[in-house]
Structure formats: structure tokens, C-alpha cells
């Protein structure tokens, strides 16, 4: 089977958090991108886990070709990382805008998947840690007419099915749910899948020599209509948090605890 994993480059969310916590997150002159050039760029964590899900299918004996594809201004680094982890083919869909419209990104990804020989399984992270939107997988599934299963924590091939069928354990607010879906399908992966593997040194070196196949929108002969943005980022800002914390006084843990409980009872928050 052919598995295509969609991966996105993002700013390291932990570094962004640290800047935010220190009150040092700044927006650049364009009014919409973060200025901190020291923040490392890396593969979106959930996407790395989506790739891990594909590799685990292969480890489990599923015969598959794994492709990784990315839309963005400069995707070579994460695509090589995907190759080092075990992707057999890597493809780049260049797009200049640093905050591209995700409808356009999804249209490009869907067209790439169709034109490159279709996929039995399209894997994506549940959302990107920069815009948190999580809509690209759904837009791809609709463009390709495939079913969508979200928030997988485990993916396996269902035993003894007539046609290739996936058995997926998905994380829901009510606990784990097990579903089955026939291929082709789009599946998103959640962090509950667990730690992704690290590439070995040898694979890293081999991946360095791999060049992503570069595919332009013209090459996909997409109608202009599909490439028209629908949701255009105008500006980004750092919201203020209005803090009014009262630090509860107390010399010892017991005093602190009693002072807090007294306040919570006073406010009728607890009995």
C-alpha cells in the first residue's frame, strides 16, 4: 500500500511558549509573523507522530511505500528529516507565503496525492502547533472523497478483511474508541500515539543526499479557483492576560493550606 504523510514546518512551540512566558513574543513589521529568528524550526510534533504511525505499520509487516510531502516556503530540512526517519519518497510543494491559506495548502496536497499515484492511507498530525487549525486533513478528505478518522493513537491493518481495512483506536472525550475504515482513508494522529523514533546516524547521512521532488502548482494543473485564498491572515497579536492573583500568605504549608481553604469557603467555592 502507499502511505502519504503530510508534514508541516513550524516554529518550536516550546520556544514560542518560553518567549510568551517571558513577555518577549514580538510581531514583525508585516504585522503577522513572529520576529524571533532564534526560535528553531522543526517538524510539527503531531506530524512526526503521523510519520511514526506509518513506520509502525511497516514494522508490523505491512508492505508499504511511505511518502512525505510538505507545503511551505522551505521544506527541505523537515523532508530530509522524514527521509532519515524512513520515508521512501519526499516531495516539496513550494509556497512563498509564510502564513499560507490552508485551503490552498490542502488543495495542493490533495492534487499532489492524486497526481502521484493516489494513496491508500493519508496520514496527518491532528493539528499544527502554530495555527492550531487542524483543518487541512478534513479539507483533503473532502477533496479526495475519502473518509476521515481523527485523533488516532494506534493504527493497524484489520485482520482477515476482504479489502485493505484499517483498525484505528482513536482518542475521544469519552475515552478510546475503536473504529474500522476501508482504504483509502485520511487519518489524523494525536500525541497519545507516543514518542516518535530517532533517526540513526547512518540514515541521517543517507537522507542528506536525498533531494525532495519539487512540484509546482502549474505541474499539478490545478484550476486557479482552487488556489484562491479564502481565509487570509491579516495580523497576529499577543493577547494580554489581566492578572489579579492574590498570593495567599502563610509561613508553613499548613498555614498556606488553611488560608486558601478559608478563602475558598468565603467565596462559597467549596463546602
Amino acid at each position: 500500500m502507499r502511505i502519504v504523510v503530510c508534514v508541516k514546518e513550524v516554529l518550536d512551540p516550546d520556544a514560542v511558549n518560553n518567549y510568551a512566558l517571558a513577555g518577549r513574543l514580538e510581531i514583525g513589521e508585516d504585522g503577522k509573523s513572529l520576529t524571533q529568528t532564534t526560535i528553531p524550526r522543526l517538524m510539527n510534533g503531531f506530524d512526526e507522530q503521523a510519520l511514526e504511525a506509518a513506520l509502525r505499520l511497516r514494522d508490523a509487516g505491512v508492505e508499504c511505500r511511505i511518502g512525505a510531502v510538505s507545503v511551505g516556503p522551505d521544506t527541505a530540512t523537515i523532508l530530509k528529516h522524514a527521509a532519515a526517519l524512513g520515508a521512501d519518497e519526499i516531495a516539496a510543494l513550494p509556497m512563498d507565503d509564510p502564513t499560507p491559506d490552508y485551503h490552498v495548502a490542502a488543495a495542493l496536497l490533495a492534487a499532489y496525492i492524486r497526481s502521484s499515484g493516489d494513496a491508500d492511507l493519508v496520514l496527518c498530525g491532528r493539528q499544527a502547533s502554530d495555527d492550531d487549525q487542524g483543518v487541512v486533513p478534513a479539507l483533503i478528505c473532502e477533496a479526495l472523497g475519502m473518509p476521515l478518522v481523527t485523533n488516532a493513537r494506534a493504527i493497524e491493518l484489520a485482520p482477515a478483511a476482504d479489502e485493505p481495512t484499517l483498525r484505528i483506536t482513536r482518542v475521544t472525550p469519552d475515552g478510546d474508541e475503536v473504529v474500522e475504515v476501508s482504504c483509502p482513508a485520511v487519518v489524523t494522529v494525536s500525541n497519545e500515539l507516543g514518542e516518535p523514533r530517532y533517526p540513526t546516524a547512518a540514515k541521517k547521512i543517507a537522507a542528506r543526499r536525498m533531494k525532495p521532488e519539487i512540484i509546482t502548482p502549474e505541474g499539478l494543473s490545478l484550476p486557479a479557483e482552487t488556489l484562491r485564498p479564502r481565509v487570509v491572515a491579516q495580523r497576529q497579536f499577543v493577547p494580554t492576560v489581566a492578572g489579579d492573583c492574590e498570593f495567599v500568605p502563610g509561613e508553613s504549608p499548613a498555614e498556606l493550606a488553611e488560608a486558601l481553604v478559608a478563602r475558598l469557603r468565603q467565596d462559597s467555592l467549596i463546602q
Partner: protein
Amino acid sequence: MDAKPIVVCTWNESQGGLTVGAEEALTLGRGVAGATGAKLRLLVLGPLPEAAMETAGRFGADAVDWIEDAALEAFSPDAYVEALAGYCQQESPALVLFNQAADTRLVAPRLAGRVGAGVVMNGVDVSVGEGGGLQATASAYGGDTQMVYELSGAPSYVVALSANALLPEPAEGGPTEPECRVISSDLSGVQERVRVIEQARAEGPRLEDADIIVSGGRGLGGPENYKLIEQLAEALGGLAGASRPIVDEGWVDSSQQVGLTGKITRPALYLAAGISGASQHMAGCSAAKTIVAINSDPDAAIFRYARYGLVGDCLEILPELIRAARQ
């Protein structure tokens, strides 16, 4: 010609009420409808909750549109998307608003893809921009930043609102009397492609409904200390939650994760021990009325959100709190 309607979409939850967040979405929708001279409608999929007409009226809706079909009785993504797509084709709404939850995260962007609409998730606001078009504000980086998106270029838009986007406000000047319009749809051809083999079984009460939540994070030091969180939760009559790292480490089950990619809660009291207050965690609890933080670092971000702060070692403070709460 009338402006294209603003539609708030909801469906019945198992409790028989409207989906949590429908009132917030109606509040926002009423503002947009007012600013654009459009009608505000509440769209209900599946069984009509008892409260639907009354709530719609209280929040100033002009109509309740009801799609009744056996296929919509329980949540079923393919049927829901099909019904919504049919509705959008027939009624051409300018904007369909959802309250964001796990189910809407699945349905809203698929609807957009199906009908060629634009979609924005994690919305905190929708307003009329300077040029007269709609714009949506949504949180990004878990809430570290917010993004303002211009909504132009698509015939209609789908926006899902975050749980803590705004507070519900009934319509000024008293309730309206919405008409109830039964919308026909033909879902006979829809067959759910994703087959449920084993249903999720929520065990006991849900964090989303809890009035009091006590959560623990990495500051607990080790899995053996999580019992302090459970004991305090029990002593306060609440439920125990967690930050993501200790879920990822396997100390607690993922159903207890609070945050952007976990449970979105709205308790009266949220007590966080050994949690730093990263935006992605706060996305799941900042709608709490009162937040209490216990952290050994007086500069921890969580104190910016907290009403009460305790600076100290949570392993020492929690046992004392359990004792004090039991008295």
C-alpha cells in the same frame, strides 16, 4: 434582497440539552447578524432538544431550522456533513457558527471542504471588518497569540468558537418568538464509512461537566504523587485532571488531560498544582471562574491566570490542603 443568514449550528447531546456553547455562539451570531442586517437562525440536527425554542428566543434568533432524520439521531459524521451541506446549498448562509468540541472539529472543516466554504477553528470573535467584510479572530500557538483572518473570497464561512471565547448574553429587550422551520433532507443514500467496533465508554462523570477540578502537572515529580491530586479532588467533591506531559509519561490516562488537545473545561474552581501555565494547558481551563495555582516558582505563568496563588512545594502543601478540606 436580504443579507445571507447567520446560522448557529448545534445538535442534541445525550443529556437532552443544547450543545454546550450554543448560547455563546448565538450571542456572537446575533452581533454579526445585527451588524450585517441578516437574520439569525439556530440550526438543530437530529432530535429537537426541549430547550431549543426557548433558548433560541432568549438569544434573539429569528428562526429555528430543524433537520429531522433518523440518520441524525446519534452523532454520525458522514450524515451530519451531508445534511449540513444540503442545508448550506439550499439556504446559502453567510456564516455557520459552531461551538468547538471534538465532534465539531471533525464536522466543521469537512462541511467547509464539501461546499467550498472557508473555515476558521479556535475562533474567539467574528466581526465586520473595515472593508465591510467579515473577519475572524482565532487563537494560535495554543493562545500565545491571536490571528485576525479576513474572510473573503469564498461564498460562505464556517467558524468554530473556542469554549472560552465569550460569555453568553441574552438578547436585550426580551426574547423573540422564533418560527420553527422543518428542513427536509434526503440522507437515505448516506452510509457511514467509519464503522465503530468498540464504543468509547466514559467512566463516571466527565471533566467537561465538573464544577471543581484539581489538576496536577510535571511539578508533582513522579507518578506516585498523583494520588495527592486524586485525594484532594475527592475531599473537595471534584474531579482530577492533568497536564499533557504526565499523560504522555503514562502517569495518568489521556481522558484526564486538560488543554488545547485535551478536555476543555469550565469549572467554578480549577486548582492547578505543579503546572507551569503554558498557553496550551490554559486553553482547557481558562474559562474556569476561579483558578488556584500552587507552584514553587513565584514567576510561573500560571499565576497570571490565577485568582489565588500559593508559592511553595506542592508535595508539602497538597497533604495539608487535603487535611484542611476534610475538616
